């Protein structure tokens, strides 16, 4: 290859890669486009303040009310529970696999955990409803059959491999020299792990957290099955709730006539969800940039 063709090939490759990256923007544009039209129609009929600040969500009832807060609350409640399981447990598993476990254990356990990520979410939903909830009810007699706690926990288990696998990769990639440096100072494995290796892998770990959080917020079927689909503004995890996604799936897989206000609600809720995750990502991006350590 002459120098000239080589440069040309390089140029071509860069453009091709740029196209790939730009593709993601197209997708977003597509999503916004898919959401925007019906959302605008929705807000022609329902004042945005009622939507954002109302506390009763009964859009499909005869006397419809469009206060989205119960859905937002349900989403936050379930996601918080899921993240409370997935983040510490995923990170701890990752630390164990990367820093403590013999290589053989690591080689077996990691893929086994990853199976969890492939179980269809409906299966997790039934697992939550038929297995976990009854189990929890033995300890918590107040627990309703449909509740936020059980799907939250199960969702945490479901996204755990996302956290543990990606974090483990990041930890594993930290150069051994850094660990050696810490050990040579008399660090225990814990101290080396928590204060040198984890910070050095922070970028990858936080990426796994972001993905997990996004996944928790966007997860649908588990909550649709096990949380009760009852839009209710509560912080009590023992009670039934409905999340934004569960609502969307309920409507889009239901008998709702298109073009009706009920049909449009899913786009309004979808848009709000989109904006919420956007803000969340802005925040985590900022956090990540602050705490990232770059090793050469």
């Amino acid at each position, binding site marked *: 290859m002459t120098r000239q063709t080589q440069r040309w090939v390089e140029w071509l490759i860069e453009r091709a890669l740029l196209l*790939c990256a730009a593709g993601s923007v197209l997708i977003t544009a597509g999503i916004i486009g898919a959401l925007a039209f019906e959302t605008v129609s929705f807000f022609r009929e329902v004042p945005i303040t009622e939507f954002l600040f109302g506390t009763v969500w009964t859009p499909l009832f005869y006397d419809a009310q469009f206060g989205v807060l119960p859905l937002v609350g349900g989403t936050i409640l379930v996601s918080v529970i899921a993240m409370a399981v997935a983040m510490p447990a995923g990170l701890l598993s990752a630390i164990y696999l990367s820093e403590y476990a013999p290589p053989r254990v690591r080689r077996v356990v990691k893929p086994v955990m990853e199976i969890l990520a492939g179980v269809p979410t409906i299966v997790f939903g039934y697992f939550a409803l038929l297995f976990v909830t009854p189990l929890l009810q033995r300890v918590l007699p107040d627990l309703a059959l449909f509740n936020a706690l059980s799907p939250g926990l199960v969702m945490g288990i479901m996204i755990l491999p996302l956290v543990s696998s990606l974090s483990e990769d990041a930890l594993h990639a930290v150069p051994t020299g850094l660990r050696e440096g810490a050990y040579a100072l008399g660090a225990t494995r814990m101290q080396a792990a928590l204060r040198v290796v984890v910070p050095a892998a922070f970028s990858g770990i936080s990426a796994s957290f972001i993905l997990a959080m996004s996944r928790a917020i966007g997860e649908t*079927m588990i909550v649709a099955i096990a949380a009760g689909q009852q839009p209710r503004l509560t912080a009590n995890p023992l009670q039934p709730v409905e999340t934004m996604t569960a609502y969307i799936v309920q409507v889009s897989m239901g008998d709702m006539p298109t073009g009706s206000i009920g049909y449009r609600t899913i786009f309004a809720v979808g848009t709000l969800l*989109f904006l919420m995750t956007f803000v969340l990502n802005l925040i985590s991006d900022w956090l990540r940039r602050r705490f990232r350590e770059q090793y050469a």
Partner: protein
Amino acid sequence: MTSASRRIAGDRLLQTMSILVLTLSLVALTALLYDVWSDGWRRLDWQFLTSMPSGRAHLAGIYPALLGSLYVLLVTAGLALPLGIGAAVYLEEYGGGGRLARLIEINIANLAGVPSIIYGLLGLGIFVRVFGWGPSVLSGGATLGLLALPVVILSTREALRTVPMSAREGSYALGATKWQTIWHQVLPGALPGILTGLILAMSRAIGETAPLITIGALAYIDFTPSGVMSPFTVLPIQIYNWISKPQAAFAENAAAGIIVLLVLLLSMNAVAIVLRDRFQKARA
């Protein structure tokens, strides 16, 4: 020496805790798998694998769904892998960390949080209608490809970041072009992480139900896909369908279907896992 013993205790504690957590999640997994297995193993036989679906539980099989899942995953991987890795490489190696690259980055993280059902709406609007692909394997695979894309991009970027700068410098100093450096040094170094992302993304795609129902993947179909333009169904839809039926016998079918899905998933991932193992060992 008390501080030392405290530190040792801390170390033990962390180790114990992480083993505990890991065990607990493995126990949860085992419980789930056991639950599924005990419900479904009786239905697992050759007939189940090779039969068409049926309204009669004992006759029903998953053949079209199994093949449909395979077809769709091929399309999904064929789309999400090159696009995802390409985008990640651009952002990490070419993008230069500018404002635009950052915006794209946040945008991608954002896409990961878009509920799958909205991807379904997007796929319906664009692939099925605008592109006129209909409710075909291609539409389904492309929809899931978009869904899987952010996971591939994010994990690939992180994997690229773990490749030390000195490896790039070494390559440049030998007169390697940027692409040669990426292809020969950076991508191989990042491969374990890329494969993990791939495993997770494909795992997610293979278990998705809602978006495929939205784009019109079928619940009943008595033929196998003949190509990318053929109508199709996939395992999760078949499972969902069975789970929704009142008859208890279908619950057994559903469980058996889940087992098949997991085996399919595992055998697909096995390749990636073996590769990842190889490369991680080579790097250590």
